[in-house]
């Protein structure tokens, strides 16, 4: 199935006929895959954008949104069904592209497409827009005021490849709000976006005509510019440098959402540290660390653990180490590149150095072999991202104030806090952590499963791109004030 070439682009059939392609090798030399890519130029970008715009006018703009959502839900189901060739093909190619182990890829597809199937798209749209029909015609909102939502005519989306499945929800968001989609795939993960486009086109040719997925080397200025310059909406994932240059090039009226680089952390209250609960707590914490090998913004890099519980922070650290060791087989890691492993080794050596010379009670726990996992335990809170690939710090702390102080300078780099606490204590701790402006607070073990109806980077997934028309009906009386105009007989508003 994964023999030969992978078509790492998708263009609507009419356009594809005229596109030039070339074959490139991606990935490390010993493990490269061959990808067929569309040759991208400023002129071709213009042609493709034109094509998806006119297809949108024909196939998307006047079509009932609910119908589009049903198509998208059927596609999600195909990626979920273990017997479906679509899912099997996706798993095979994602595994072949080499960034994550097969169990991790299966997990990613299930977590990503699960919430989109069986009415999921409709529920998502309803949660943000009120109802699907509000995308078709003015529809009374909760207060009874008729409003219609318009997605942008087309969207430019720029994906990152750090986590498998990352393109899916953005991809769906564009089509769900009847926007055509021009997507730039990531060279780290060039597989899923074109596969998704092709599957949508198979399911519904009209929708497929409104999508283009291509790749070009990031930072190719004339191509970035050609794509960004006229985009009415841009959704981009990436590091500081790349996203800054995108932001500079966008049209002043464009709606832009950029997800920059972030990490997550976790907080465990003393009341949660019970002897009977320790195994399960450590297993959930380890799962959050291990899933996607800390490549995503929802991966915890530090655990702040309160002293004074039934079991102490050191015992938690030890249990977490055990749970990470279990996941070496349970949820295997892909071996990092040499330079990444070298960083982990340097980090370990540094921790051993602190263990020998420091005053923070540092202790290093690590996998019996290789760099599979590393845990550094120390007294007191501080915050620094680790080199990832299952490298974490566990900090013994006295309370949330200590953590607030340590995180405050870095709060803008934190996407989520995994919080382990119950009842009123949880409410109080969540309030303290929320006050730092961290976008998401979630239970441990669920850090990597954000809600589709929640936010990313503190922003909803559809609302930032929508424009609204509100049909106002009243008031009809003298409440309408027109100080600079002579009174009319009729109080009708314009």
């Amino acid at each position: 199935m994964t023999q030969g070439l992978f078509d790492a682009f998708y263009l609507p059939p009419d356009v594809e006929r005229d596109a030039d392609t070339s074959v490139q090798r991606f990935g490390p030399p010993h493990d490269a895959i061959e990808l067929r890519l569309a040759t991208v130029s400023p002129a071709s970008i213009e042609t493709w954008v034109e094509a998806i715009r006119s297809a949108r006018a024909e196939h998307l703009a006047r079509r009932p949104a609910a119908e589009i959502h049903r198509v998208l839900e059927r596609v999600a189901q195909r990626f979920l069904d273990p017997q479906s060739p679509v899912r099997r093909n996706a798993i095979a190619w994602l595994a072949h592209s080499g960034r994550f182990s097969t169990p991790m890829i299966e997990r990613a597809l299930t977590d990503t497409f699960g919430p989109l199937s069986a009415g999921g798209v409709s529920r998502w749209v309803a949660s943000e827009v009120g109802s699907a029909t509000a995308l078709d015609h003015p529809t009374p909102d909760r207060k009874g005021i008729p409003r219609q939502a318009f997605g942008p005519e087309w969207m430019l989306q720029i994906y990152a490849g750090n986590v498998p499945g990352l393109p899916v929800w953005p991809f769906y968001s564009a089509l769900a709000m009847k926007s055509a989609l021009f997507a730039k795939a990531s060279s780290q993960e060039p597989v899923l976006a074109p596969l998704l486009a092709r599957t949508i086109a198979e399911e519904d040719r009209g929708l497929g005509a409104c999508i283009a997925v291509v790749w070009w080397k990031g930072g190719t200025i004339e191509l970035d510019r050609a794509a960004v310059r006229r985009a009415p909406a841009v959704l981009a994932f990436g590091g500081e440098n790349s996203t800054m240059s995108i932001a500079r090039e966008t049209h002043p009226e464009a709606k832009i959402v950029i997800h920059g680089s972030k990490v997550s952390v976790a907080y465990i209250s003393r009341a949660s540290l019970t002897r009977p609960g320790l195994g399960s707590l450590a297993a959930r914490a380890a799962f959050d660390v291990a899933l996607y090998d800390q490549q995503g913004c929802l991966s915890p890099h530090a655990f702040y653990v309160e002293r004074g519980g039934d079991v102490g922070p050191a015992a938690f650290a030890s249990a977490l180490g055990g749970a990470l060791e279990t996941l070496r087989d349970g949820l295997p890691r892909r071996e990092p590149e040499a330079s990444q492993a070298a960083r982990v080794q340097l980090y370990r050596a540094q921790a051993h150095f602190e263990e020998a010379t420091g005053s923070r009670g540092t202790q290093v726990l690590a996998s019996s072999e290789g760099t599979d996992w590393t845990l550094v335990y120390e007294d007191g809170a501080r915050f620094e991202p680790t080199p990832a690939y299952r490298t974490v710090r566990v900090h013994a702390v006295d309370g949330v104030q200590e953590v607030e102080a340590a995180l405050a300078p870095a709060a803008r780099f934190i996407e989520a806090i995994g919080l382990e606490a119950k009842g009123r204590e949880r409410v109080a701790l969540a309030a303290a952590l929320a006050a730092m402006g961290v976008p998401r607070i979630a239970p441990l073990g669920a850090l990597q499963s954000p809600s589709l109806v929640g936010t990313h980077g503190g922003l909803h997934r559809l609302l930032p791109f929508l424009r609204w028309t509100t049909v106002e009906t009243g008031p009809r009386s003298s409440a309408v004030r027109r100080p600079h105009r002579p009174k009319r007989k009729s109080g009708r508003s314009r």
Partner: protein
Amino acid sequence: MTAHEIPGTDPTRKMEADLVRFISEAGWEEAQTRRAEAAFSDLAIRSFRIQCDTIPEYGAYARHIGRWSGRSGDWREIPPVPCSAFKEHGLSAARAGDGAAVRGEAPASPAVTFETSGTTITRPGRVQLKSTRLYETSLLKSFARHLLPDGARLKIIIFGPTRAESPHSSLWFMADRVAGRLCDAPIWIVEHGEPRWERADAELARSRDDRVPVLLLGTTLLLRAYVERCDRRGLRFALPPGSRAMDTGGAKGTRVELLRNDIAASFHSVLGIPPTHLVNEYGMAEMGSQFYEDTLLAAHERRPARAGFVIPPWVRTRVLDPETMLDLPEGRPGLLVHYDLANLDVPLAIQTEDVGAVAGNRLTLEGRLREAERRGCSLPFEQFLERERGARADPAPGMPR
């Protein structure tokens, strides 16, 4: 009572004298011989033992990871210190005087303090040296061999600041010593943090007109910026034969992906310096020794250049499997650990995060992982630091080192 506690002797200075002699006398082609290996091992272990006493944190680290004595007599047993450890710990014999290691104590007047550029996992650190004798012995011998194999005494144009303006940079210290000891009439192009390109224009024009060859030394970034500026303005200097350049840094840790061939081509077309006379250097503040390409030496010896950097005979570089930390067979790339006899006031064994391969006395670096492609929403440490530092500019253009 050990030898270095006998009153009236200073084991460190005796060691330094022995090391200086070894470096001065070391033959470039002898490193592989059994005799040279035994001599290296002997000095390294003696030096390591002294460092365990004079650098208390290093001694504690060596004891902690269980390789304190070096009894086996093999230099490979010497525990390398992570280069990140220079961050918070002085990690220098110059810091703690007699080894009392009182944290926060004023340093015992180090001769120089270099700031490191930091690793991808840590903030910048400090390298303090009581004496620069070993550093200079290593530097001048290596530099003379790889940049001045013809024995030329050239005018030097330094694309960087003076040592007075940048007192904590090992690179500009190095330039200062090269200028003072091996060259004539030094000119510095960077002043108050600003490149004064017109100064370079004038010097290069003079060199061209007087037919007097020059030596250019600087960071790859700054030299390249100058060459690009000349190119944009249509400036060309056909520098006289014998002119040469040493550049350092380049692809390492910088955002710009610098392609060696492009750089060499632009130096040739704009400055008239042929690729044989462009020598790349690899060094770090934590090491007293540097590594050079042998392009110019090869041209002088009328043979083709060999790939990679030359490992000086007083340095050993181990290449470890980054997963197992076991030595890799020759030629296979892995994590680099350097053992540098020019390091006495700071640990001689340094674990880096660089990846490269060694064949014979040649070191090839695999550039830092290219992060040009968007890395997604996960925050890499470099970027965390970059943003944490905010808009604070580098003290000098190019790479701090």
